[in-house]
């Protein structure tokens, strides 16, 4: 039952391990001559000003928000899609209603001008 998941865990582990080994080899082979200028923040030679965590614009939040909403929608629809063959017509139409309600949300965001990249 859990066997495929053991394989996935192992593969994810291998996926971390092999790059880790490669980077370790790089660390062993590479010269190590740190100095203050080399370690400093790289901004094409100009001294960095102010703190790193600059104020981001709020539009990023809106994209994340719409993504969350549609992600949940997809998660609700996946079991429905798996069961599709066994559904009656009205059950399919209910899911269509579900999609239409969410599309209305997207249309609202579009009308509000939220989707413009400013």
């Amino acid at each position, binding site marked *: *039952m*859990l066997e495929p*998941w053991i394989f996935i865990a192992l593969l994810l582990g291998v996926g971390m391990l092999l790059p880790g080994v490669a980077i370790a080899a790089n660390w062993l082979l590479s010269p190590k001559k740190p100095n203050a200028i080399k370690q400093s923040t790289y901004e094409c030679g100009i001294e960095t000003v102010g703190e790193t*965590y600059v*104020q*981001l*614009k*709020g*539009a*990023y*939040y*809106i994209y*994340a*928000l*719409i*993504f*969350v*909403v549609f*992600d*949940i*929608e*997809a*998660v*609700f629809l*996946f*079991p*429905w*899609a*798996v*069961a*599709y063959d*066994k*559904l009656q017509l*009205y*059950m*399919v139409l*209910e*899911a269509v*209603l*579900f999609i239409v*309600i*969410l599309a*209305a*949300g997207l249309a*609202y*965001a579009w009308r*509000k001008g*939220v989707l413009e990249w*400013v």
Partner: protein
Amino acid sequence: MTILQIIFLLTAFLTLLAALRVVTSPSMVHAALWLILALAGVAVVFILLNATFLAVVQVAVYIDAIAIMIIIVVMLTRGAVRGQGHTVSKTWWAAALSALVMLTGLLVMLLQAPVRGALPPTLPLDQEAFLERLGQALVDVNQYILPFEVASVLLVAAMVGAIIVAWPLFVRRGEEER
């Protein structure tokens, strides 16, 4: 101790450690990163419970979506509590006390529960068929059609509400700065 038990204990330990870091870390970015680890631990626990669908949903919804949204908002409100002293309120001891009381109550209740030592029954049907039944139940009039449709209404309401709350102010603030 079977291998499953060892995996569970390790996961639980790591998850609780990460959860503790979430509620104690002074840096919000670090707290959010620890939150991701805790959520991944919960996904592993779901796999141990044979709820593989929910485990994948946990990763897809929590780690890929909600955690990223939280990190973005942390960056949007950066420096909010910076330079204002402590990250916990003055009454943190009361919070710790109530959490402890809660924990004691829960554990006492658990000790009296008749099902505490139950072992998992064998899964009666394969997971594929179960997922199909879940999908059917979600759109069946006699079962979960109402939560299913209400979920979509709730999501749209949350989306519209969040846009109304957050969006006009961006515009106004943008004009101020100009």
